[in-house]
């Protein structure tokens, strides 16, 4: 990378950062344009979230000029790459962003036109469409120098990243995490740790520098702190009325997913926790007249967050707990910054999607009690089979064993073509009636 390129990088990112700061400053002092009759105003932290996400992608636009770039899966042990100064891009998050920006149909069609079946994951189709067409709502995505895929969230990422590796002709590091039913066996932890150790020289070669163990420990410590804060924020949903909803969590989870290991992420969640606590102190509920409290299972329906929030809020229903957002905090206790590789191996073996369906059911049952829930919505996600498998049984058992009504809602997390608004509205309306609202 030449001096001129580095100068371009710093000029572009610094000017952009200044503009984003100004935008945030203005937004913080402006009354939100959209006011809801049934919901509390958006969190005051929201302009900061927007700034963080925009800044992340802004740096991405210029990253190839100055830094090495890694594309990673959302459940990858990213601390290793952060400690090596990689700019880290999460295609899944980019796809979710495309979902909220409602540009998926266009991008997925690009992928389908190139021969990718409409039956494969809509995140993958969104990103492959963006990769093939160069279209993205964030301006431009940097090309990867290395790909890093961890199979702890699904096997789909393995095939998806094979496609990326073939397209970009760059090294692909796969961290294979054996499926676990209760606790990971020692040999499984050792197996993952060995893979992490083998990944280091490859990542070092691409980065052009050696891994500094102190830096890895520091990054791991920041990941742990941010995860703990995130867990605390979610736990505040136990209050009545709940100060934030799961829809807020879906929006505010971007930093914990794609900015783990950064100091500003810890600051961000500390500030968010403070604001949530202020809401509790002032008795502010996310749903103005909270009557019923629900659980959400599976990924969000990114392109209908507002619609669902308003629909349920209008009926006094707040969704206050979610297995999905919980997944980014529940492993915090496993992270040991003093033993980053071994604890990394253990932590990244335990995401909810790498464990038996019984674990998910147990999590949901625990949430029903802890959050005093009146019902559950299980999003049967056409695109995410590993998350959706077992949901029929889980719904039945929640009804039978926890004595709460549970609804299976069929949709797709990113592809609006698999969403029938009328059907969803009918099912939700009936479900809300069942809740006795």
């Amino acid at each position, binding site marked *: 990378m030449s001096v001129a390129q580095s100068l371009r990088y710093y000029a572009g990112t610094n000017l952009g950062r200044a503009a984003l700061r100004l935008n945030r400053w203005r937004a913080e002092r402006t009354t939100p344009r959209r006011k809801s009759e049934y919901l509390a105003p958006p969190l005051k932290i929201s302009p900061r979230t927007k700034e963080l996400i925009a800044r992340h992608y802004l740096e991405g636009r210029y990253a190839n000029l100055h830094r090495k770039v890694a594309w990673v899966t959302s459940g990858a042990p990213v601390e290793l790459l952060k400690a090596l100064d990689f700019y880290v891009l999460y295609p899944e998050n980019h796809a979710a962003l495309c979902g909220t920006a409602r540009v998926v149909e266009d991008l997925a069609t690009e992928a389908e036109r190139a021969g990718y*079946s409409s*039956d*494969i994951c809509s995140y*993958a189709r969104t990103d492959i469409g963006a990769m093939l067409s160069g279209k993205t709502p964030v301006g431009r995505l940097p090309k990867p120098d290395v790909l890093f895929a961890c199979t702890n969230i699904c096997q789909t990422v393995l095939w998806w990243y*094979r496609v990326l590796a*073939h397209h970009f002709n760059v090294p692909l590091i796969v961290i294979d995490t054996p499926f676990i039913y209760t606790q990971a*066996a020692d040999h*499984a932890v050792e197996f993952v740790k060995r893979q992490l150790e083998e990944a280091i020289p490859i990542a070092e070669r691409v980065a052009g520098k050696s891994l500094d163990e102190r830096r890895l420990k520091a990054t791991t410590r920041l990941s742990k702190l941010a995860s703990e804060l995130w867990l605390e924020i979610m736990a505040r949903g136990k209050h009545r009325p709940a100060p934030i909803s799961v829809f807020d969590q879906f929006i505010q989870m971007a930093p914990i997913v794609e900015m783990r290991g950064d100091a500003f992420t810890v600051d961000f969640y500390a500030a968010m926790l403070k604001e949530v606590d202020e809401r509790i102190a002032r008795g502010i509920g996310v749903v103005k007249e909270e009557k019923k409290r629900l659980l959400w299972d599976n990924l969000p329906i990114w392109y209908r967050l507002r619609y669902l929030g308003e629909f349920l809020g209008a009926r006094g229903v707040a969704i206050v707990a979610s297995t999905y957002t919980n997944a980014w905090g529940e492993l915090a206790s496993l992270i040991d910054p003093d033993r980053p590789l071994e604890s990394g191996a253990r932590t990244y073996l335990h995401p909810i999607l790498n464990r038996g369906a019984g674990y998910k059911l147990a999590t949901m049952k625990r949430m029903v009690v802890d959050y005093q829930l009146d019902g559950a919505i299980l999003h049967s996600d056409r695109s995410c089979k590993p998350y959706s498998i077992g949901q029929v049984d889980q719904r039945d058992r929640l009804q039978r064993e926890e004595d709460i009504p549970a609804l299976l809602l069929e949709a797709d997390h990113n592809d609006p073509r698999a969403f029938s608004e009328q059907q969803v509205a009918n099912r939700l309306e009936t479900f809300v009636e069942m809740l006795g609202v």
Partner: protein
Amino acid sequence: ADEFKSLYLRLVELTDRAPSHGDLMECIRTDEAADARLVDLYRCRADLPIAQIDFYRIVRSREYLPAETFSEIAGATLARPERSRRMLAQNGRAQGTPLQKVPILLSGIVPEPMTIFDALDQMGAAVVADDFAGCGRRLYPASTRDDPFQRMAERILAAPPDSTRGSAIEARLEYLARLAQTSGARGVVFYDVKFCEPELFYLPALRKGLQDAGIPSLAVEVDLNDPLSKQVVTRLEAFLEMIT
């Protein structure tokens, strides 16, 4: 190997039976013998006096029959008399007679619905090789390891490139192109099951790679529980006309 060992220990716990090293090795060798029979079937497929659909019925029985039973059936098939082989060849239902039939290669997860073989027979096409995850990709080479768990693991890892193991696209492409070349196939038909992500992700790059190598291909999507549609049959006919 550790995963196999962990599974073994769990099964010991569940069944209260603990097969010895010798017991395990004996079972593994029986399985390896069955796999060797499977390889023989593939090697002799052009001379076998059976219809294509029957060939694949036998191949697929390796998935569920005990190894000993499969070996017996495969052995009996391989030992069928030459006369019936010729007779069947004359009425066009045998695996052989590549001169009269259009040689093609099939790829996918499993050959379902299996009526595709009857359809191909009627169209005058012969499947001379396959890259089905449930068939041709299960030709596991024997291992020489003495540790039973390592032996089982090594066999699976040494099998042909497979999407379900996440093999690289380049490895699969090279394997497919070589298989097409050595078998004399004039084209590749991707017979894919709906929603089968492992296969569907690889499809565009494999087809492009085959096209660059001068090997025409066709992709059809079917459902395991649906009958073979006329639309698929028509597309197959058009493809065969193109490569004839």
